[in-house]
């Protein structure tokens, strides 16, 4: 601990020293791209050519510690001037007083009309202020192996009951060594897997209000997930620790026949599996459907020295053409209507699955507790429930407790 703090203090000291010599019209921008083939420099060059008096220092911060670094740097007083941000972080950033309201700037901006409908409403803060400018979006849907379904004469599951049935049939021992080598579904038991859980649980008319998750319906949902792993054994044995890398890797390698993710991984999947992979909206569970809206916006921080320059830069990223370039790099979908019309980066079946999922796409509650839900409370309790250390009811009670006590 003390070693970490001293390292952080040293790093902070160095950063303060470095920022002291910067020109006033420099915009420090933080973003996170998984893609090593980084396009940000081309966008920066284009922007700087059009705005010679502004210099952009764009820094690619690794995703795993993106928000840890963001919060601590803001508190230490050397945060960026603008950054890529997600909705779940907004309540905390608002509480810290770190965000600059940009509603007036957006209203006065000629790019506003080109933004997809509804996106500005989705990213509005709980206090009705606007702090976020959307830059890309995705919706989670079900990936499945078309060839395996056809081989077994199965249909794409439309309800949770069908989903369970199909997953059990897809779980097979194809090489007769006594244990399955293909599993029905790749469930993400580690950090980030709440999206999978939510599609199978929150669809039942359950939410995070007091007593909702702990109700019979709520517990039934989590029990359904736990049973799929423990009784039906349709998830791989490594599920409790599996993160993004493992889940996507297993699907590409043919170890799993279905999983849930968004269009961002579709090109990689097509590269690995070709026409064998397809997509559909998540199944209807307990009478409703719920899928995650994957948001990504940019924001200007209240500590920015030159807010006009920072705004110019982030609005540049959400404008026609530039937004397309940006999303080609991230593999997600553009927020501008004009770029969406000419979008050819993804195969149509994945764009269709995304669009068809939009009507029941939701965000997690816009409250500070959601950060802890995503980062620790959900993963720890899901893992304990999957490994039988606690019951489904205890898991839901822990989440209820986080949001309501």
């Amino acid at each position, binding site marked *: *601990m*003390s*070693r*970490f*703090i*001293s390292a952080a*203090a*040293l790093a902070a000291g160095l950063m303060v020293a470095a920022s002291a010599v910067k020109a006033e019209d420099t915009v420090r921008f933080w973003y996170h791209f998984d893609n090593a083939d980084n396009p940000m420099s081309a966008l920066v060059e284009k922007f700087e050519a059009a705005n010679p008096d502004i210099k952009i220092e764009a820094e690619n911060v690794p995703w795993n510690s993106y928000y*840890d670094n963001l*919060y*601590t740097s803001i*508190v230490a007083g050397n945060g960026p001037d603008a950054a890529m941000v997600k909705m779940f972080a907004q309540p*905390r*950033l608002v*509480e*810290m007083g770190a965000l600059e309201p940009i509603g007036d700037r957006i209203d006065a901006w000629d790019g506003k009309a080109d933004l997809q409908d509804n996106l500005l409403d989705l990213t509005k803060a709980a206090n009705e202020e606007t702090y976020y400018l959307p830059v890309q979006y995705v919706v989670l849907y079900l990936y499945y192996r078309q060839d395996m379904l056809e081989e077994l004469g199965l249909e794409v599951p439309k309800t949770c009951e069908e989903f369970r049935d199909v997953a059990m049939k897809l779980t097979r021992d194809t090489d007769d*060594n*006594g*244990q399955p080598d293909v599993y029905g579904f790749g469930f993400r*038991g*580690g*950090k980030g897997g709440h999206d999978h859980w939510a599609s199978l649980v929150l669809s039942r008319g359950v939410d995070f209000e007091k007593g909702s998750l702990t109700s019979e319906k709520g517990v039934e949902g989590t029990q359904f997930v736990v049973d799929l792993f423990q009784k039906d054994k349709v998830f*791989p*044995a*490594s*599920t*409790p*620790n*599996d993160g993004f890398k493992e889940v996507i890797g*297993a699907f590409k390698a043919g*170890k799993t026949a279905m999983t849930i993710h968004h269009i961002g991984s579709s090109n990689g999947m097509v590269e690995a599996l070709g026409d064998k992979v397809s997509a559909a909206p998540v199944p209807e569970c307990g009478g409703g459907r719920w899928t995650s809206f994957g948001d990504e916006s940019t924001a200007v921080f209240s500590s920015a020295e030159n807010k006009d320059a920072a705004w110019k830069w982030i609005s540049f990223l959400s404008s026609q053409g530039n937004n397309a370039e940006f999303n080609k790099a991230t593999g997600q979908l553009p927020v501008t209507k004009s770029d969406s019309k000419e979008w050819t980066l993804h195969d149509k079946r994945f764009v269709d699955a995304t669009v068809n999922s939009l009507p029941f796409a939701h965000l997690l509650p816009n409250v*500070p507790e959601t950060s*802890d839900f995503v*980062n*620790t409370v959900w*993963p*720890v*309790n899901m*893992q*304990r429930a*999957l*490994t039988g*250390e*606690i019951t489904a009811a205890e898991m839901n009670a822990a989440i209820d407790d986080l949001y309501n006590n």
Partner: protein
Amino acid sequence: MPSSETPIRRGALARQVLPYALLSPAVLVTLAIVFFPMAQAAWMSLHDYILFKPKEFPFVGLKNFFTAFQDEVFWISLRHTVLWIALTVPAQMLLGLVTALLLNQRFPWRALARALIIIPWALPSVVIALMWVWIYDANYGILNEFLLRMGLLKASIPWLADPDTALYAIILTLTWQGFPFFAVMILAGLQSIPKSYYEAASLDGASAWQQFWYITLPGISGVLITAVLLRTIWVANSIDVIFVMTGGGPGYATYTLPLYAFIKARTNLDFGYGSALAVLFTLMLLGLVIVYLRRTGRATS
């Protein structure tokens, strides 16, 4: 040593001041990057300090410490920490001892073997952790593949995803990483034992075991104790391998106290409680640190 009242010559004064002057940069840096953050952590542990509420910093006395004693996760983590130290350090020491004894024998390619043995110690922890994650992998891992083919297992075991095996799997990894340290230290100790002792002993008819017990072991005991103390402190504090391999999961199955403090502070941004956990753990380790400092103090004086 403060200067006396009597007038002293400039040369003598310089001789007295010089060591302090030369030491002061190191001392100042240590104060700034070790003792200042330590004091800060102790100070934070007495407050409710949530990083995303930077304006609130109320003094709460020992509340965080009492919370810890009633916190289930604190006790789980403490139990894991004790297991972690009690298994890893002796295992590393025994493996290191055996390795050192082997490397002390004469055989062709001994120099090469001595160089190779240091590899686990020289690799970065993150590389080791990722490597072992793959070894343990339930679908592709070589360990499962090996055991299945040998017929020792019926079905592959998800070593890191099963709460009953996860901690032990990581302990094995850390043992592998740390044993070269013991091997090298003990080898150095072995070579400082005069050959004539063994010659005299064999003349007196001492068996190999008696030679080991009465000459080798006493000869390396000083090195051994220092190495064990150092390693215990390092192993107790190390979270990098656990963090990369499981992040503490599944559930709390691989939480140790330093990891819990780190997650509380860094991920939950609860620096007050995180600091309290760190302070508690520091107090527990303090006993060991004192023993170590006394030994080094005695050795130099």
